[in-house]
């Protein structure tokens, strides 16, 4: 049976699954985009096209008992960590079958079984929460790791500063990862932030840091392995800046008119899926044929899931009153 945990195992044990999962995420986002455009999804969505490598690298390395605090832009990390496309799409469409029963929506995904904390729609929201999870691991002498994922623009929020400092002074097993996709909403990072390499901000906290190519799963894994090893062995937190690019607009219908001419195209030439594809082609893991087959399989599978989810039940109106108070029945 396919569930979050089995999907998580897959990606930890099988390199080809990285590629397949990246295709899945890409196709998933494309379908979300189409569904939003056609009015089948309400509210907002934030796509991760172009940023799949990091999600895959993380999921391929973390254990199920590690935890991830991510953001509104989390379809990718959710799928990578193992959530089924069905449960994620259902949540995005507000269905009873969604991972949060439809009360969360695109910005609020969650699955305790694979350590995905409810994603936060507040910039900086997850950063101290990750530190707190790490604190509990430290106190209980567990070798678990907490990871916070956020964007470039989010390094300007107070919570970033406070959380990094706290994590460092307490030597917490937490990894802060900035997915630098060049934009915060409609603002290019250089318009809001006077430095180019954001990872140097870790110097303010005497925290180890590095910058890494965000388009390459293998390179990302190397950096992550160092950080995870450091965290598990009591060496404290790490800050990683992954240089990547957001192929889609910020949210909803944004067409990103603010991009300099040629920027998108130039980054697309390093599409993380392409990068991995080429590596696998070289090593013989993939052929043109198997690639085409996988792409077709993925499209078909996601199309079916879209169908299924559309037919899924809506939540019951009484669900409004559920899960507000822990430990109470109502």
């Amino acid at each position, binding site marked *: 049976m396919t569930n979050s945990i089995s999907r998580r195992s897959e990606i930890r044990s099988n390199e080809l699954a990285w590629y397949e999962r990246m295709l899945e995420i890409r196709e998933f986002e494309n379908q979300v985009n189409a569904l939003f455009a056609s009015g089948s999804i309400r509210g907002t969505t934030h796509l991760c096209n172009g940023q799949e490598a990091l999600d895959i690298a993380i999921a391929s390395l973390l254990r199920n008992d590690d935890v991830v605090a991510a953001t509104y832009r989390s379809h990718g990390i959710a799928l990578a960590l193992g959530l089924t496309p069905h449960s994620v799409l259902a949540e995005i469409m507000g269905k009873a079958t969604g991972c949060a029963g439809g009360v969360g*929506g695109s910005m609020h995904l969650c699955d305790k079984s694979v350590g995905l904390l409810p994603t936060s*729609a507040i910039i900086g929201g997850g950063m101290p929460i990750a530190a707190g999870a790490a604190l509990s691991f430290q106190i209980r002498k567990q070798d678990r790791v907490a990871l916070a994922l956020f964007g470039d*623009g989010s390094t300007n*929020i*107070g919570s970033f500063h406070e959380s990094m400092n706290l994590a460092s002074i307490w030597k917490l097993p937490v990894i802060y990862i900035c997915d630098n996709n060049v934009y*915060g909403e409609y603002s290019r990072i250089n318009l*809001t932030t006077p430095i180019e390499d954001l990872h140097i901000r870790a110097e303010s906290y005497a925290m180890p840091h590095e910058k890494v190519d965000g388009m390459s799963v293998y390179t990302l894994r190397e950096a992550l392995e160092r950080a995870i090893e450091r965290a598990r062995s009591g060496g404290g937190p790490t800050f990683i800046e992954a240089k990547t690019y957001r192929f889609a607009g910020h949210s909803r219908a944004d067409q990103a008119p603010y991009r300099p001419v040629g920027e998108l195209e130039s980054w697309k030439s390093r599409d993380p899926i392409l990068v991995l594809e080429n590596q696998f082609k070289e090593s013989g893991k993939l052929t043109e044929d198997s690639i085409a087959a996988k792409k077709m399989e993925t499209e078909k599978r996601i199309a079916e899931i879209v169908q299924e989810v559309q037919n899924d039940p809506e939540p019951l109106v009484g669900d409004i009153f559920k899960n507000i108070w822990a430990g109470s029945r109502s």
Partner: protein
Amino acid sequence: MADMRVRQAIVQALSDEMSEDPNVILFGEDIAAAEGPFKTSEGLLDKFGPERVRDTPISEMAFTGAAVGAAMMGMRPVIEIMFMEFLGVALDQLVTEAAKMHYLSHGEYSVPMVVRASNASGLGFGSQHSQTLENWVVATPGLKVVTLSDAQSAYSLLRAAIREPNPVMFLEPRILYAERGPVDTSIKLEIGKARLIQGGNDVTMVAMGNMVNVAKQAAKQSSLSCEIIDLSTLVPWDRQTVLASVKKTKRLIVVEEAPLSGGWGSEIVAEVTSNLFTELIAPPIRITTPDTPVPFSGVLEAKFTPAPDDVTRQLKYLVETNQAPKPWWVMAGLH
């Protein structure tokens, strides 16, 4: 008199104030080059230039505080908090600094700033982007709190807020941005004055924001004669207008989007009761949202706010029985 969307009325108010007063400046996240996530500053960068219309980093505490400092120097900053929830990372500057600055400076400094924030539910933005949150900014002497309910009030109240010598929290129910309505730019509305939406004799309905529309529709589909008051300013609210109305109708219903527990409506009910106890012929009641987070699902969110039907039912019950009905969600069988 033009027909405008609410968001256009906001742009117009900003533009008119900026034209008349060089001290008016705007900043916030993506309000300049991108013209605002909800297009509430369309054209203003082009018109007034990058000194006066600025994009900020994602730093609500810093830019709210910057507005405080600029206002103290005599500017009239208008800042945008994209979703009211984001004040949760910056409330300090508004409540603990701005609102107390005049007092703590023995009257030497004042803080003529406006914090615009979109709020409330209805568009599927989920639990962290859909609350009304007036409670964060009440109980704060020195701070005024205003809510628009249509294009005219968007225009006229925003202009008044910008001219106000005190800090103003200006709430904009997001669901109304796209709504159209007539705007007469010569109409002045005062901060602190409620708006009489329609006269009536059976009951006084007090509402704010989008609930003014719900109250109107509910009244329309009922056979009762309802007096509807758009409170407009929550702090300081217009006791005089509300009390005079209830003195006449002898019944009060507050229609509000905040949760039952801790919402602002209780303040209206408490004051009216203390003052008009012997004249009331029915218990004053509140029709609110339930004590739950705002759900995302469209099906659930539609049931989360009281609909005109729900209000009509409550209205009818109250006037017919002169007793308080059960909450609308109980009447509607949701809980």
